[in-house]
């Protein structure tokens, strides 16, 4: 494996790991349920995307061909993350989870 590929893989792994960590910190730090939804839908998506990209580079560098399955995993992740966030938000609104005090606007009742 060329040193360039190794550097790229390491950088992507650190980048992805850092973003996943920030997503986890957000889950702990943000004040209420709805704001916590934002961590996993974004920070983590990029984190996993970067880790997948490093996996693609690794397997093409050791000569096993470009891994299309990694691309598929990323696509599935991008498709399912917003749906699960939507379902969680809907469920929270249904049972009336409390919002943090300075939230503007209110969830619907319908």
């Amino acid at each position: 494996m060329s040193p360039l590929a190794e550097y790229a893989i390491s950088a992507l792994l650190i980048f992805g790991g850092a973003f996943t960590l920030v997503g986890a910190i957000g889950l702990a730090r943000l004040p209420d349920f709805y704001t916590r939804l934002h961590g996993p839908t974004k920070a983590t998506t990029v984190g996993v995307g970067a880790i997948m990209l490093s996996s693609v580079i690794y397997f093409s560098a050791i000569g096993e061909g470009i891994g299309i399955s990694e691309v598929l995993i990323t696509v599935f992740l991008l498709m399912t993350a917003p749906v699960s966030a939507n379902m969680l938000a809907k469920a929270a609104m249904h049972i009336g989870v409390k919002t943090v005090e300075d939230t503007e606007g209110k969830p619907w009742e319908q």
Partner: protein
Amino acid sequence: MFDRLSFPQPWLSLILFLIWQILSDGVSGGSVVLGLILAWLIPQVTHGFWPERPAFVKVWRMPAYILRVLKDIVIASFSVAWLILSPRNPRPAFISYPLQLDHPLAISILASTISLTPGTVSADVSDDNKTLLIHALDATSDQEVIDAIYNSYEKPLMEMFQ
């Protein structure tokens, strides 16, 4: 439901077939047969969930849209990460977004895009498909968020679905 060999959603069937070939290690006789069975079975079973109206989508506009969304996801992640790590508390808000799109598929694409991009999660669609409830993590004003979503996502989608 299973009385004849038909493909009510030809594109869905094609995509399912191709995805199955990619998921199974290499194309073989077995994977082709199973792929065909899945490409037939899954659209039949899920037929009731698909909107009746066929979508006339300008597919060639899709790649530009996807690239723009991917770029925004990366930018959004940085701004959300910064917000999480900075000591000040965010100003969350619920925003009612007036929808101009009317195709169910277009609305679901817009809702997914909103969930993936800068500081917003779509929470609900009103029963009449006219309003989208959005939760913004850090909104300075409602109108700003609405304008940004309209200009960068809803407009391209309206062009795509007309």
